[in-house]
């Protein structure tokens, strides 16, 4: 590699990128270390979060995040998958392009706007339909999150279905398979790797979403009673960080606890991403 101005600039740029990545990792570990050192991993299973009494249990937030994830995926995956199948198999080509454009646009809507819709449209509706004390709940968070990831999953599923060659469909028709069998036996198995990576990508987004969840989940650090009660206010990891990030004094144990929440989120996201990459077909 010759030492030209180009190579020096490229080297400098890559160096800055590496330094910032390392700084990210370093500060995550360094700032949350006091928390891990004092409490170890036991706090992950404690359900008491009272910073003033030095209790920093992470369980309510973790359970809340997991529930929000399940609800979001449970609503979004079937609908988006069905929409992708309908769009790629039943709609004419021009409609498909228009639909694709609208989905790409919708995928870019800022999360705080979804938060507004959740707060002022979804919550009153939930409160009235289920006769709740308040609409703030894990169900609300899950529903808003599923709304956010619908376009993403639909786009990736549609791409995966489109990649299945036309000849496969025609061969299936000539072999006498009806529409349902063609879908189940030929199209879905072949498109499944692409669909799966779309679902995993959406899962990563659901895990990290802060603003919309913060506004609708209720921020109550208590385990759902009973554990499957998704109609009561609760807490998620991202909502907790968002709410308390400003008031934790820098360097205090409270701050370390919040950084530990961030570390948990980052580690989960990294594992999810590596798992997705391992299972994505190399196109």
């Amino acid at each position, binding site marked *: 590699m010759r030492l030209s101005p180009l190579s020096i600039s490229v080297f400098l740029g890559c160096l800055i990128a590496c330094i910032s990545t390392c700084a990210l990792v370093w500060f995550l570990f360094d700032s949350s270390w006091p928390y891990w050192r004092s409490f170890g991993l036991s706090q992950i299973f404690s359900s008491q979060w009272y910073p003033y009494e030095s209790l920093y249990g992470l369980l309510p937030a973790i359970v809340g995040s997991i529930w929000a994830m399940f609800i979001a995926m449970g609503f979004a995956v079937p609908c988006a998958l069905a*929409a992708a199948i309908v769009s790629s198999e039943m709609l004419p080509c021009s409609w498909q392009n228009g639909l694709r454009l609208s989905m790409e646009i919708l995928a870019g809507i800022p999360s*705080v*706007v979804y938060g507004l819709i959740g707060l002022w449209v979804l919550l009153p509706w939930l409160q009235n339909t289920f006769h709740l004390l308040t609409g703030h709940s894990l169900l609300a968070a899950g529903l808003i999150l599923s709304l956010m990831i619908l376009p993403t999953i639909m786009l990736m599923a549609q791409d995966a279905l489109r990649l299945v060659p036309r000849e496969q469909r025609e061969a299936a028709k000539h072999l006498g398979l009806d*529409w349902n069998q063609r879908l189940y036996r030929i199209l879905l198995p072949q498109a499944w790797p692409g669909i799966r990576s779309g679902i995993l990508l959406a899962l990563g987004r659901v895990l990290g*979403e802060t603003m919309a969840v913060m506004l609708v989940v209720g921020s109550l650090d208590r385990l759902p009673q009973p554990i499957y009660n998704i109609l009561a206010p609760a807490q998620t990891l991202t909502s907790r960080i968002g709410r308390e990030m400003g008031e934790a004094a820098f360097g205090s144990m409270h701050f370390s606890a919040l950084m530990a929440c961030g570390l948990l989120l980052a580690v989960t996201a990294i594992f999810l991403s590596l798992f997705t990459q391992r299972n994505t077909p190399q196109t």
Partner: protein
Amino acid sequence: MKIFLICLALPAFLLPAACLLYILWQAWPALSLELITGTVDAIEGQGLSFGSQQALWHQISGSLLMMLLACSLATPIALSIALFHALWASKRQKKMVLSLLQVLQSIPPIVYGLCGLVLLVHLLQWGISLAAGAVILSVIILPLLSSNIIHALERVPFEQSQAALSLGLSHMEMIVRVWLPSAWSGILTGILLAMARALSETAPILFTATVFSGIAWPESLFSPVTSLQTHIFYLAQEGSNAQATQTAWASAAVLLSLVLCLSLTAWFLRRYEESL
């Protein structure tokens, strides 16, 4: 079976579009040039109804300023990574770079905000500042931008690069004369998408770059700003005040239209590139 699928698919088709229309419908009464340029001083306090009568101009300019700064910080670095990937990386290094970029893209933005809070606001003593917000946003959009530029450069036909090198052109000349003309639309698409992303991020800048009121125009890199996204968040907490909700919907509509402009331009660019 088909009927069942169509029923299942209807929410996916209708709900997102319904949301967009609902936002427009709610925002329509409040949308006017007056709202944006307005006569109400941005530094004006309004007592209990925080921010519900402010004009949006300062918030819009704060958001745009942070977005532009973030993109101008991220673009050279993204270009460097892409050029490294294209020119000097071995096959294994290429895979590692792409894998690393995917991993960084999946980390929640709030984590970037937390680390920015620790490093930039407290350790480096920049305080709550435009600079901190711009750096955090640029780190968030860097992986997205890099992978887009890498893919844009990969689409340049291999034979052209080979021909250029065999004709004796240096790397720099090849980039400028062969790659740039073919890949400029792809690179620009990547930049536009990164800008749209920078405009949508709210949580990382909430405690590191923005204040509620008092700033008309940041007088230095190290002063805080007001931004449209965080303004919507503050207004979201005033659900009982009818004017605040109106302003919130209007702000959401303005933010949406800014993001849509960028996304639509990117989409048209991609269509133009595909048609070539």
